[in-house]
C-alpha cells in the first residue's frame, strides 16, 4: 500500500509521521505541499499534527482552505483513506470532511501527557487490528482538543458507530463530549483523532500501542 503525508507550513509532527509510516510500511510516504492541486495515486493520505499557519485563526481554518485540502477532499470522496491527527483532525473538521468541532481544552491550557484510549469500534479499516473495547496507551499534545457536536450530530455519529476512540479510565484530558478522542466519517474512510499514535510505535517510545492503527490502515497483518 502507498501513503502520502500532507505538508503545510506550521505543521510540526510531519517528520514523526513520516518516520512512523516508513518504519511500519517499509516505504517512505510521498509528500504533498500546500499548493499542490493533485495528490498522487495512494491508498492512504495522512495530515499530521502541528500548528498550521500558526493556528492564529481557529485551529485548522486556514489550512482547510488550501489547494492541497481540496485535493484531499476529492480523494476522500473517491474512497481513499484519510487520517488526520491532532491539527490534522482539526483541519478535517474545518474542511467539513468530519462532523463536529474542536474547542479549547476545558483547562484552557496546552496538555501533553499519556492517556488511555478505548477502541470504541474495532470494525473499521483503521482499527481492525485492535480488539473491540481494547484499552491502549497513547500520548496527547494539544491546546484545542475538546470535541463537540450538537445533540443531533452526536446521536447520529454514536448511532452509526463513528466514534472509534474514547478517552478511558478517567483520562479525558480536554473535556471532550462523550470522552470522544477519534471519529470516522459516515462512509468510514476518513479518520480524525486528537491523540498521537505515531509517537507510540516502538521500544524507544516506551511502547507500541499506536502501531496497530497504521498497520490496520496499511493492510499489514497484526
Amino acid at each position, binding site marked *: 500500500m502507498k501513503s502520502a503525508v500532507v505538508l503545510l*507550513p*506550521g505543521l*510540526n*509532527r510531519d*517528520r*514523526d509521521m513520516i*518516520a*512512523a509510516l516508513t518504519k511500519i510500511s517499509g516505504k517512505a510516504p510521498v509528500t504533498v505541499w500546500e499548493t499542490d492541486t493533485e495528490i498522487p495515486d495512494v491508498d492512504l493520505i495522512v495530515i499530521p499534527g*502541528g*500548528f498550521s*499557519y*500558526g*493556528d*492564529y485563526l481557529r485551529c485548522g481554518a486556514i489550512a482547510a482552505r488550501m489547494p492541497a485540502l481540496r485535493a484531499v477532499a476529492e480523494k476522500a470522496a473517491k474512497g481513499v483513506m484519510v487520517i488526520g491527527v491532532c491539527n490534522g483532525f482539526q483541519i478535517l473538521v474545518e474542511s467539513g470532511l468530519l462532523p463536529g468541532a474542536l474547542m479549547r481544552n476545558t*483547562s484552557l*491550557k*496546552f*496538555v*501533553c*501527557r499519556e492517556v488511555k484510549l478505548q477502541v470504541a469500534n474495532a470494525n473499521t479499516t483503521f482499527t481492525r487490528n485492535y480488539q473491540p473495547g481494547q484499552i491502549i496507551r497513547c*500520548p496527547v*499534545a494539544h*491546546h484545542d482538543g475538546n470535541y463537540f457536536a450538537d445533540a443531533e450530530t452526536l446521536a447520529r455519529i454514536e448511532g452509526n458507530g463513528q466514534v472509534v476512540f474514547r478517552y478511558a479510565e478517567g483520562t479525558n484530558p480536554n473535556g471532550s463530549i462523550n470522552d470522544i478522542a477519534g471519529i470516522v466519517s459516515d462512509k468510514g474512510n476518513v479518520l480524525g483523532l486528537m491523540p*498521537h499514535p*505515531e*509517537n507510540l510505535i516502538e*521500544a*524507544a*517510545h516506551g511502547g507500541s500501542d499506536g502501531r496497530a492503527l497504521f498497520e490496520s490502515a496499511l493492510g499489514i497483518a497484526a
Partner: protein
Amino acid sequence: MTISNTRQITPELIASHGLKPDEYQRILGLVGREPTFTELGIFSAMWNEHCSYKSSKKWLRTLPTKGDVVIQGPGENAGVVDIGDGDCVVFKMESHNHPSYIEPYQGAATGVGGILRDVFTMGARPVAAMNALRFGAPDHPKTKHLVAGVVSGVGGYGNSFGVPTVGGEVNFDPRYNGNILVNAFAAGLAKTDGIFLSQAKGVGLPVVYLGAKTGRDGVGGATMASAEFDDKIDEKRPTVQVGDPFTEKCLLEACLELMASGAVIAIQDMGAAGLTCSAVEMGAKGDLGIELDLDKVPVREERMSAYEMMLSESQERMLMVLRPEKEAEAEAIFTKWGLDFAIVGKTTDDLRFRVLHQGEEVANLPIKELGDEAPEYDRPWVEPKKPAPIDASALPKVDVADALITLLGGPDLSSRRWVWEQYDTMIQGNSLQRPGGDAGVVRVEGHATKGLAFSSDVTPRYCEADPYEGGKQAVAECWRNLTATGALPLAATDNLNFGNPERPEIMGQFVKAIEGIGEACRALDFPIVSGNVSLYNETNGQGILPTPTIGGVGLLADWSKMARIGFAAENEIIVLVGAPPSWGTHLGQSIFLRNVHGRAEGGAPPVDLAHEKRVGDHVRSLIASGIVTACHDLSDGGLAVALAEMAMASGIGATIPGLIEADPAAVFFGEDQGRYLLTLSIDPQGAEWEQLSAQQKKLGIFAPWIGTTGGRELKLGEARAISIEELTTAHESWFPNFMGT
C-alpha cells in the same frame, strides 16, 4: 510615534542610552566627531552590558572552553560538540529575565524563540529544549501571574515551533520577587561538516535580510536589560518583543533548505540589538566593512526612522551573506515558505559600518572598534563572607516521615507536572526520558543506539552562602545528573544571572562563582562552550540570589542501557554510592533546614571534585555493565527525598533500616554532595557483590547496601512507614493547589 533622526546629542540623551560620560568620551575619540543620533543608538546597542560583556569579560576568559570534543567554543551563536559518526550537538542557554518580568508570556516566548534561532543559525535542527525558571515567593502577589504567563509563553512558542522540552527547573525564593529568571536552553543536531558561522567572507557580496518584517517592537531592549529595575518598570513594556513561532518554524525550514543548497557564506540571527549587532558582528569577524541601505529593509510599520530600524528587536529575522550566483535559488526557497527576502547591503573592504537611509548617510563608523573597543571593566569586588556553620545537634528533633511529607509537599520539591504537562515533551518521537527524572534524554535520529542527555542545574541558596562552592556545585550537579542516566558528560553552557556588578559584593559573588565553575569544569573535563551573562537583576537595590545556571549535555553510547530513577523490581538491593561513613552529614543550607525549621543558615555543602569524578565514573561504568536497574543522584532533600522519588516513579516501595546512633535528620536529609542511589540486579550474598565491594574499596568509594526495594510503602529507619499514595498525594498536590487549577 516616530523617533526623528536629527536629535540633538545632549548629556541627558547620552545618559538615557545607558552610556556613562567616560564611555561617551571614548566614542568621541573613535568617531572623531559628535555621533549622529543613529550612531549614538548603535553605540548604546553594542556597548551595553548585555551585548558587550564589559563587566564580565575579564572573568569569562578564565573558564575552560576547549576539549577533545569541542568543535566551537564561546563567541558564535552557540557551542558545537562532536558526538562521533560525523554528527555534532549545537547548544546554548540564554536568559530573558528582564522582559519576562515585564511581560511574562511574550518575554518567555521570545526567550525560547531566541535560543532556538541561535541553534539553527549554526545549521542544526533543534532536538531538545529546557527552561530554568526562578520566581519570587509563592505568596508574593505577582508570582502566580508570572508563573502562569511564563509557563504558557514557553509552551506557546516551543510547542508550536515543534521542539520537545525535556527538562528544566522551577524554583521560588523571595529574592526573585522583583526579578524573575527565565533561562532558556536549546540543543540541535548537525553534521560536523555542515556548521555555519557568522564570519563574512568576500568583498562586494550581497548582505541579505530574511524572515519577518521589522517593526518598532523591542527598540532599546538590550539597553533595558542592562539596567536595574525600579518602581516604574511597567512603563518599559513597549521594549518587549512579540514572538511569532509560526514564522520561526518556517524560518527554520527555509534556513536549513538554504544551507543545504550551498548558498550561504555567513549567517547571523538578529537577536539583541537586531540589525546593528548582526551586521557589525558579521563584518567585524570577517575583517570586512558592511554597507546597509535601510530603504530595502522589509518593514511592517510606516515612517520608521533609521534609529528605530537599527535598534528594533523584532523577532524571527536573519542576516546572511550569500553566494551571488545562488541568489535566485535562495529567494525561491524563502518565497516558498512565505518569508521576506531582501538584499539590504553589501560587504566592503573599507572596514566601515555605513548605514544609508533615504539618500542620507546616517551612520559611518569603524566596524572593528564598535565591537573590539567596547569598554571593559575590572570592577572592584570583595571576598564574600562565609556564614557560620550550624550546630545540627542543637536542632529540635522531628519525625523523619512527617518532615519528608513536608518537603515533598512544599514549593521547592513538589512535582513540576503542572508546568511540564504544558510543554510538548514527546514531539519528534525521540524523547527517551521526559521531565521528572535526573536528565532529559533524546535519541540521536539516524543512529541505532546513541542518545543525548540534557540537564540544567544550580542551587542558588548554596551560591548565596558560598559563591565559590555554589559555582562548583552547580557544575557538579549537572555532571552528576547526566551521569545518573549513564551518559558521559561532554560539555556545558552557562547562564550567569547576578545583581548589579557595580556593587563590589555582587561582583565578588560573580568572581568567586566563576572561579568555582572553572575549577569544577576543569576537574570534571566538562568545558563551557557557550553561555550568556545577565547582570543588573536588581530592583530598588535588592539583588537576586546569585544564580549561575549550568546546562549540560552528555552522550549515551547505547540508550538501551540507560538508567531511569524508578525502582525497577521488588527485592533489589539499594546501594548509596559515594556516601560518607554515616551516609549523610551536611544540613547547612539544606532544604530540610529551610522548610522544616525555617532557617536559611550554615555553609554550602562542599564538593570534593576528585571524589565526584571518581564516583561518577564508577557509577557510569556500572550502568554500562548492565547490572544497574535504577539510578538517581542525591540533591535537594537528600537521601529521603531521593528514595521517595524513586518509589513514586515506579510504585514500588523500599525499606531502609537506617543507622544506629547517627542523627536521622542528617542521615536522611543531609545534602552531602557526590552521592547516587543505585538498585542492582545482583545477589548481595554472591560473588558479584563481593567483587564489586572490593573494586569500590580499591577506588576509595564508600557504597553501603542501605536497604531493599519492595512493597507499597517507604520505611525509613524508625519512622512510620509512608504509603506511596501518601507520598504522591503530597508531591502532586502543591503546584495545582498553588495555581488554583
